[in-house]
């Protein structure tokens, strides 16, 4: 708020209206997302072992230190208190494979913040989702460790060291729905347990941190597009596609990043269905088993364009 005068005797604040504000702040929003990610953190520890916590800690430590250092070097005010660096660190860790090397995690974390966010000017200025930038960098730099999946440690069903998507892509093995729903399959730390993701995701939608249109459009879009290819006999059923890989995690936690998603409702529909289309096309026709990361990054790039063409019609029609 713009404070103009503070009267000494009365200690009154004088600002122009509105005089009240909701209690939502950037910091609080980041905190809500971190809370929403806790079920995913727990599922990663349960299914892949407690030592995965080291990956999470390393990632958060290096994103926070990278932001602090860059800001210091560029003589800018520290923005650590807004919590976004911690969130980026947590998000990055949750999309890395289990038992991933800690030094590589640190590199990915630094890239996320420096290349993904700070070079653009910091929070609110970046084009691409920082955590995905970090992951894309690691995927290019360390392709083998990035696609090496350890077995889940969960005693019920020790599954082979592959993700449901790679198992299908390379061996035509279709994983059962139930373990995919619960989370005891191969995959990145936070992406395997559908139930944990949905729990956190619903919390965010309920708290109005996440625009419900984003997960809704990605999920329904994926159902439709994979349904088409399923009917053509090219791919497993749509439910498999929704539960497999990073689709749920991406649609609730990655594509919903405020900064890198469109502003208007109309724009969001284009963005969401665009992501869904790309994911399914990559999964069905691409060389890679998974395509959520690249789909979101690609659609991130289109967001400025989408915003430009989805300016809503002013109430009462057009001027003149």
């Amino acid at each position, binding site marked *: 708020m713009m404070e103009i005068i503070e009267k000494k005797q009365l200690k*009154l604040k004088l600002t122009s209206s509105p005089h009240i504000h909701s209690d939502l702040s950037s910091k609080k929003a980041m905190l809500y997302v971190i809370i929403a990610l806790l079920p995913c953190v727990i599922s990663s520890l349960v299914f892949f072992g407690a030592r995965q916590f080291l990956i999470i800690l390393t990632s958060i430590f290096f994103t926070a230190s990278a932001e602090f250092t860059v800001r210091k070097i560029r003589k800018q005010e520290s923005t650590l208190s807004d919590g976004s660096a911690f969130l980026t660190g947590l998000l990055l860790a949750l999309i890395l494979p289990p038992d991933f090397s800690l030094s590589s995690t640190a590199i990915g974390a630094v890239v996320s913040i420096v290349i993904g966010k700070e070079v653009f000017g910091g929070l609110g200025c970046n084009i691409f989702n920082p955590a995905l930038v970090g992951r894309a960098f690691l995927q290019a730099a360390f392709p083998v460790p990035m696609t090496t999946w350890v077995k889940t440690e969960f005693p019920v069903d020790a599954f082979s060291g592959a993700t449901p998507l790679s198992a299908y892509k390379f061996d035509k093995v279709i994983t059962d729905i139930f373990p995919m729903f619960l989370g005891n399959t191969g995959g990145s730390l936070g992406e395997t347990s559908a139930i944990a993701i949905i729990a956190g995701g619903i919390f965010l939608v309920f708290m109005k941190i996440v625009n419900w249109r984003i997960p809704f459009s990605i999920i329904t879009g994926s159902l439709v597009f994979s349904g088409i290819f399923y009917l053509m006999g090219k791919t497993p059923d749509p439910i498999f596609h929704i539960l497999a890989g990073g689709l749920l995690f991406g649609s609730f936690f990655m594509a919903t990043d405020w900064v890198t998603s469109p502003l208007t409702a109309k724009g969001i529909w284009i963005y969401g269905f665009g992501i869904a289309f790309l994911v399914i096309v990559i999964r069905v026709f691409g060389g890679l088993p998974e395509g959520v990361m690249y789909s979101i990054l690609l659609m991130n790039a289109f967001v400025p364009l989408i915003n430009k063409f989805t300016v809503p019609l002013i109430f009462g029609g057009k001027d003149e």
Partner: protein
Amino acid sequence: MNFFKNIRTFNGGIHPPEEKQITKDLPLETMPDPEMIVLPTVQHIGRPAKIIAEKGKIVAAGEVIAEADGYISSPVLSSVCGKVEKIGMNSTVSGFQKECIFISKSDNGEIRKYDPINPEYASLDEIRTRIKIAGIVGQGGAAFPTFVKLSPPATKKIEYLIINGCECEPYLTRDYRLMLERPADIIAGLKISMKASGAETGIIGIEENKQDAINILSKLVENENRIFVESVKTKYPQGAEKMLIKAVTGREVPPGKLPVEVGAVIQNVGTAVEVYEAVVKGNPPLYTWLTVSGKGIKNPKNLKVKIGTPLEQVINFCGGLTQDAVKIIAGGPMMGVGQYELSAPVMKATSGIIVLTESEIHSHQETNCLRCGKCIQVCPMNLLPTRLAKLSQLGRIEEAESLGINSCMECGSCVYGCPANIPLVQWIRIGKKSLLKLNQQKKTV
């Protein structure tokens, strides 16, 4: 369960804490007249009134002390009997210094009444003239002269006369109290206004959270076939002119146009009561109704006070400020004006005095825009507040104009929910001012 019922409303809007429970059960109380009344010559939209009272002269209550200057203007009546002590500048609740007439109260004196008019037999002009000379202005906040609203240009036809009982601003309960305490007078005022404007249909729009007001008024219009009570969704800014018209008629007022463009006129419940009083009873409007509320005031009240009573007196009458009071606002907390000079008087269209404490304001630090799009979702005018604010900040005023900056009604919904706490509407206001200047320059060149 009205989950499946289609509730009338508009797109966007916000749900700030209502805080109406503080004063909603307190009946309107008449405050004793203060010793000195201060009457600004500008209490309405339009040209300032021309002062005709002279210093030292004795005036009666209801006597015209400043005349309307031109068509869109409104006379100022003395609200007490007394002596004109001074004519000079004083702070007003609009935040500006304006020319004011100071009148000291005397204990005996007359009230200048009008001849009662029977609206059944009165002519259109008779009613309009009465509303004009009584200086009645819209009580909803903008203070547009009421007779102008009721006199549509020859090319336009008014179909709907809409009484605004939404009171969507948090804290305020005076419209609610008026609806409970004077429902028959509101309907009488509505009928007179319908006659004066030629409207065939009268609608009273009330937010759902005021169910008892809806019940009382619905009961009274049961046997009327041209007057309806509509309950509309409780949402800020439901009481904004264009939003209420959209909710009850489905029509959208085009940008830059007045409601008459779609055949509608909106009147506040308080205005309807004043119209009734002036026409039927012959009483000049000497009072306004106020909600004095907020955690910063010791004894919150709903009041009937003389127009021209200094804020300080009203606040003292309500027990004074608490220790932690930080903001005094004339009007509601969303669109009201912050006050710093308590000698400013209550004006014709002042609807409340709200005193807030830090705990009600929720001020926090401003950060970069996070492009969350919340401001766009809530904007009732479908604008892009974040873009407009940025363009205004960068001085790219013409771009802002093409994105409809002038359609902004400054309701403040965008700022309320902004997680980055960017003063969006404040920047838009600056942008609108610059645009005005730019267009004036263009004209002169």
